[in-house]
C-alpha cells in the first residue's frame, strides 16, 4: 500500500458552495421543523417547550464547527488515520453493548452516556462515517485487487459483517441496512465483481428476512407497511398517522406551527417522522423544497465524485453521498408508506445529535474533497500544465467495448 504519510500540497480551490448551501438550508429547515414538531412533547416530558430545539441548535453548532474544520483540512489525511477511526468505531460499538456503559431505550442499546450535561451519543452514527472512510481508503489502496475474491472482496465482507453484526446486536435494522448498502455501493463503484456484490446483497436480504421473522417488532413493522388499516390504533397506527400528517398538508400546508399530528399522533414527530410534519405544516411546497435540497446535494455530490483529485476522494465522496441518499430514501419511503418503517432519521433535518453532527462532519469531508477538485477531463492524465492550458489535452479516443475499457484501467493510476 502506497499511502503517502504526507501528501504533497496541492493547489486548493474553493469548496462547492452549492453543497454548503444545501446542507445549511436543510439544517436550518430542520431546526425550524424540530421546534414546531417538538414543543408539545418537550412540554409534556420535560416541562420545556424548547427542550429539543435548544439541543438541536447545540448539535448543529458543534457539527457546523466540525464541518468547517474538516472542510479546511486536506481530506487525504483521513486516509492516514482511517485504521484508527475504524478501530475506535468498532470498540465503541462493542462498548454500547456492555451493560453499564451502553444506555438502553425502547429495548435497544444504542447510546453511550458520557455523563454530565452531555447528551448520550449514538456510536453507530459515527461508525457509519468511520466505515465509509476506512473502506474508501482500503479500496483506493487495493486497486484492481477488489476483483479478486479472497484477497479483495472477502476481507471487505468480513469487516462489513463485523460492523453490521455489532449494530444488529443493539438491535438496529435500519442502520445496518444503510451500512450494508453504502459499503456494497462502494465496492460496486470501485469495480468489484458484480457476482460478488449481488451475491452478498442477496445473502444480506436473506439474513434480513430471517431477522425480520425472528423479531416481533420487525414483523409488526412489515405488517404495518402492508396491512396498516387492519389495526389502525395498534400496529398500523404509526404508518397511518404519518400519512394523515403528510396528506392533510395539501399544497401549502396548515401553516408553520399549525400541525395537529405533532400532538402525539405521529410517533417521533421531531425525529424520523419530521418530514410528515413538514408536509402537514408547509404542504407539498415544503416537502418539495426538502426534496429539492436533497436532489441538489446529490447532484453536486456526484459532481464532487467525478472531479475528485484521486480515487480515495472519489470513493469517499461516493460513500458519503450514498449514505445521505440511502438514509433519505429509506426515511421518506417510510413516511410515505413506500417502504417499511425502519427508524432512520432524515439527514440534517431530523432531531438527533449524533446523526446531525456526523452528517455535518461528512459534509465537511465532501466539501474538502470538492476543494481539491480537478477538471474531470484530466483524470487519468498527467496533471495539467501550470499555465492551465488543460483544454489543449487531446480527448482520448472512445473505446466501445468493455474489454478495452477494462484493459485501460491499470494504466491510469500512479498511486499504486
Amino acid at each position: 500500500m502506497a499511502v503517502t504519510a504526507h501528501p504533497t500540497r496541492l493547489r486548493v480551490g474553493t469548496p462547492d458552495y452549492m453543497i454548503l448551501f444545501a446542507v445549511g438550508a436543510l439544517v436550518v429547515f430542520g431546526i425550524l421543523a424540530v421546534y414546531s414538531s417538538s414543543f408539545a412533547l418537550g412540554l409534556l416530558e420535560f416541562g420545556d417547550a424548547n427542550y429539543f430545539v435548544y439541543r438541536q441548535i447545540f448539535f448543529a453548532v458543534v457539527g457546523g464547527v466540525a464541518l468547517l474544520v474538516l472542510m479546511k483540512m486536506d481530506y487525504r489525511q483521513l486516509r492516514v488515520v482511517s485504521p484508527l477511526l475504524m478501530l475506535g468505531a468498532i470498540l465503541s460499538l462493542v462498548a454500547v453493548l456492555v451493560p453499564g456503559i451502553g444506555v438502553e431505550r425502547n429495548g435497544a442499546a444504542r447510546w453511550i452516556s458520557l455523563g454530565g450535561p452531555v447528551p448520550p451519543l449514538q456510536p453507530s452514527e459515527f461508525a457509519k462515517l468511520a466505515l465509509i472512510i476506512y473502506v474508501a481508503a482500503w479500496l483506493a489502496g487495493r486497486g484492481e485487487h477488489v476483483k479478486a475474491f479472497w484477497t479483495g472482496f472477502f476481507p471487505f465482507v468480513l469487516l462489513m459483517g463485523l460492523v453490521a453484526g455489532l449494530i444488529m446486536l443493539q438491535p438496529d435494522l435500519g442502520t445496518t441496512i444503510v451500512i450494508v448498502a453504502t459499503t456494497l455501493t462502494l465496492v460496486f463503484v470501485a469495480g468489484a465483481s458484480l457476482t460478488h456484490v449481488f451475491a452478498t446483497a442477496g445473502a444480506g436480504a436473506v439474513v434480513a428476512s430471517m431477522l425480520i421473522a425472528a423479531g416481533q417488532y420487525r414483523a409488526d413493522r412489515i405488517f404495518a407497511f402492508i396491512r396498516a388499516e387492519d389495526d389502525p390504533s395498534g400496529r398500523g397506527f404509526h404508518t397511518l398517522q404519518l400519512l394523515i400528517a403528510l396528506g392533510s398538508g395539501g399544497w401549502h400546508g396548515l401553516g408553520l406551527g399549525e400541525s395537529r399530528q405533532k400532538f402525539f399522533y405521529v410517533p417521533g414527530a421531531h425525529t424520523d417522522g419530521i418530514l410528515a410534519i413538514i408536509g402537514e405544516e408547509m404542504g407539498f411546497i415544503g416537502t418539495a423544497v426538502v426534496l429539492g435540497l436533497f436532489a441538489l446535494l446529490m447532484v453536486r455530490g456526484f459532481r464532487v465524485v467525478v472531479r475528485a483529485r484521486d480515487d480515495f476522494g472519489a470513493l469517499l465522496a461516493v460513500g458519503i453521498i450514498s449514505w445521505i441518499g440511502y438514509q433519505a430514501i429509506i426515511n421518506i419511503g417510510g413516511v410515505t408508506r413506500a417502504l417499511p418503517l425502519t427508524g432512520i432519521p432524515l439527514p440534517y433535518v431530523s432531531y438527533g445529535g449524533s446523526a446531525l453532527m456526523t452528517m455535518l462532519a461528512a459534509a465537511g469531508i465532501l466539501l474538502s474533497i470538492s476543494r481539491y477538485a480537478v477538471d474531470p477531463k484530466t483524470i487519468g492524465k498527467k496533471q495539467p500544465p501550470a499555465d492551465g492550458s488543460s483544454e489543449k489535452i487531446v480527448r482520448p479516443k472512445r473505446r466501445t467495448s468493455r474489454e478495452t475499457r477494462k484493459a485501460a484501467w491499470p494504466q491510469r493510476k500512479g498511486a499504486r
Partner: protein
Amino acid sequence: MFGQRGRMNLRLYALAAAFAVAGALLTARIAYVQLVDVGHYKQEARAEHFGQQEVRAPRGAILDRNGYPLATTVDAWDIFIDRSDWQDIAAARTAADAIAPVIGRKPEDLVNEVRAEASGLYLAYSGLAFDEGERLQGVEAPGLRVVRTEKRYWPEGDLASTLIGFVGRDHGGLTGIEADFDAQLGGSPGTIYFERDSIGNRIALGKERYGREPQPGGDIRLTIDRYVQRLVEGELEARIASTGALGGTIIVMEPQTGAILAMASRPGFRLSQLDFNDPDEGLFRNRAVTDVYEPGSVFKTLTAAMAIDTGHVTPESTYDDIGAAYIGESTIRNWDYSVNGVTTVTQVLQRSLNTGAVWLAQEVGADAFYQYLRAFGIGEPTHSGLGGEPGGLLRTNEDPLWADVDLATNSFGQGVAATPLQVITAIASLVNGGRLMRPYIVEQEITATGTRTFEPVVVRQVVSEETAHTVADMMNLVVEGIPGHLASVRGYHVGGKTGTTTGATLADGAVLDGNIASFVGFAPANDPRMIMLVKLDFKEDRLGGQVSAPVFGALAPSILAYLGVRPEGSQLVSTSR
C-alpha cells in the same frame, strides 16, 4: 479503477440513475399523497382531531312560593390530584400538607390513597367552596388540579330536604323535585367541538366551536312556603321526639286551590348530610306522596258526605247503636267497645263510631259507595306532579274477592290504603264546596323562553256544595263540640277528624304491629284557608285524638296568623288547651 472518460463510468451512471429513479418515485408518491389524496387525509385528520364534549347547562333554582331560593347552583371547585406527580414521596408529603387541611383530610391518608395507584387523576374533593378553591389555586403543590365546577347550594339549609331531593355527580336530579322536574331545571346541554391531542386532551391553541349552545335550566317556583314549611318541620320533629313516634308526615294545603304549602315526612334525609352508603334506601323518598297507609276514621267524613249527598240521611238522622254490626260471619265493634243507643250522624263523627259508619255505608249501598270513593280520588294517583305516587289499594265490589265486610270496614277507613296526599286531597274537597282539586306543588316554571304558571285544577264536583258545607260544619262540631278537644285553636273556629289504625309502616316498608295516629283539620271553619293532615306512626297503641290533634292545635295559630287570618277575638270557643 474508474473509466477512462473521466470517472463517470457505467457503474457510477447506474448508481446516479438509481438515486434519480428513487428520488423521482418518492417525489411522485409524496405528490400523490399530498395533492391527490389530500381530501381523504384531511377528512381523517378532522375525524381524529376533533373531540366532542358536552357542555352542561346551568341548572335552575328551586324557589318557594315567594321566590326565596330553596336550592340553587353556586360555583365551586373539584380538587383532583395527579397520581403520577405523587410517586415521589417527598413531593407527595409536601403537597399533602398544603392540600389536606383545606379539604378536611389527614395528610397521611391523602398520600396513601393517591399513591395507591401509579397514574391517573384522584378526585380528592368534590364541590369545594368557591373562596377555598380560590385559595388552593394559589398553593404551590405538585399534581394539584383545581377544576371549576358547580354545586347545589341550599340557602334554607336542610329545609324540605326530601321534597327538594338531590342531584347526582352528573348534576342530574335523582330524587324529589330535582328529579321530577329535572327536564325543566336541567335545561339542555350544549356540545362543544375542540381539537385534541392523541391522548384526548384539548390542544392549547386549538380551534373550538359550539355544536349547540347550552340552554340554561329554568327556575321552579313551588307552592311551598318556606315559613310554613319550617314551622311544620320543627313541630314534626319536636312531636316525634316528645311522643317517641317512629316517624310522621304533615301536609298543609290550600283547600280552595290544592296548592301545597308545606310537606314534611320523617324519617328522611338531610341535604347537608347526604350519606349514600346508608343501608336504608327508603330514606330517599318523599313518604307523604309515595307511602300508603290505612287512613282509618278520617274516612268517616267521606262516608257521611256520601250518605248526606245521596239524601239517605241528614246530620240529625239517627240509628240505634247496639255496639256491634254483624256482617255475615264478622262482627264490627266500636273502637272503645261502647254501646251508644240512638245516635245522630253528627255524633257518629264526634264519637268516631264504627257501627255508625257501617250503617251509613249500607244506606249508601256498595255501588254508590265505591263510585263516591273513586270520585274522591281514592285508588288513583292525584297527579300532583310529584314522582312515585301510587294509586293506593282499593278493592271495590266489582272485584270477585270483594265481600260485604269490605264495605263495612272501608266505611271507617280500614281495608283500604291511600297516601297522605290522597287523604288530605279527598277531605279538602269537603271544605271546598265539594270540588276536588288536583294538588300541586309547582306554581311556576320560569324559563328563558317564558313563564308558565299553573292554575288550580278542579278535578270534579264530588258532592254538592250543600253537602260539603254540611259535612264541614259537622267536622267543626267534631272539634268544637267536644270540650277540651286537643285540636281546638284559641281564636279560630276549626274543624277536623281523627283517625287511628293499626299498621305502622317502617322505612323499609315492613308493617309493624303498631298504629298510625292521624288527624285532618282545617281552619277557619267558615272560610277555610288551610287544611292540614298530621300522621304519626307508633309502635305502641296511641290515639290520633291524643297525639296528632295537638300538632294541628299547635301549628294552626301560627300558620293562620302568617296567612293573615285574623282571630275571631270575641268568639273564643275553646277555653282550654
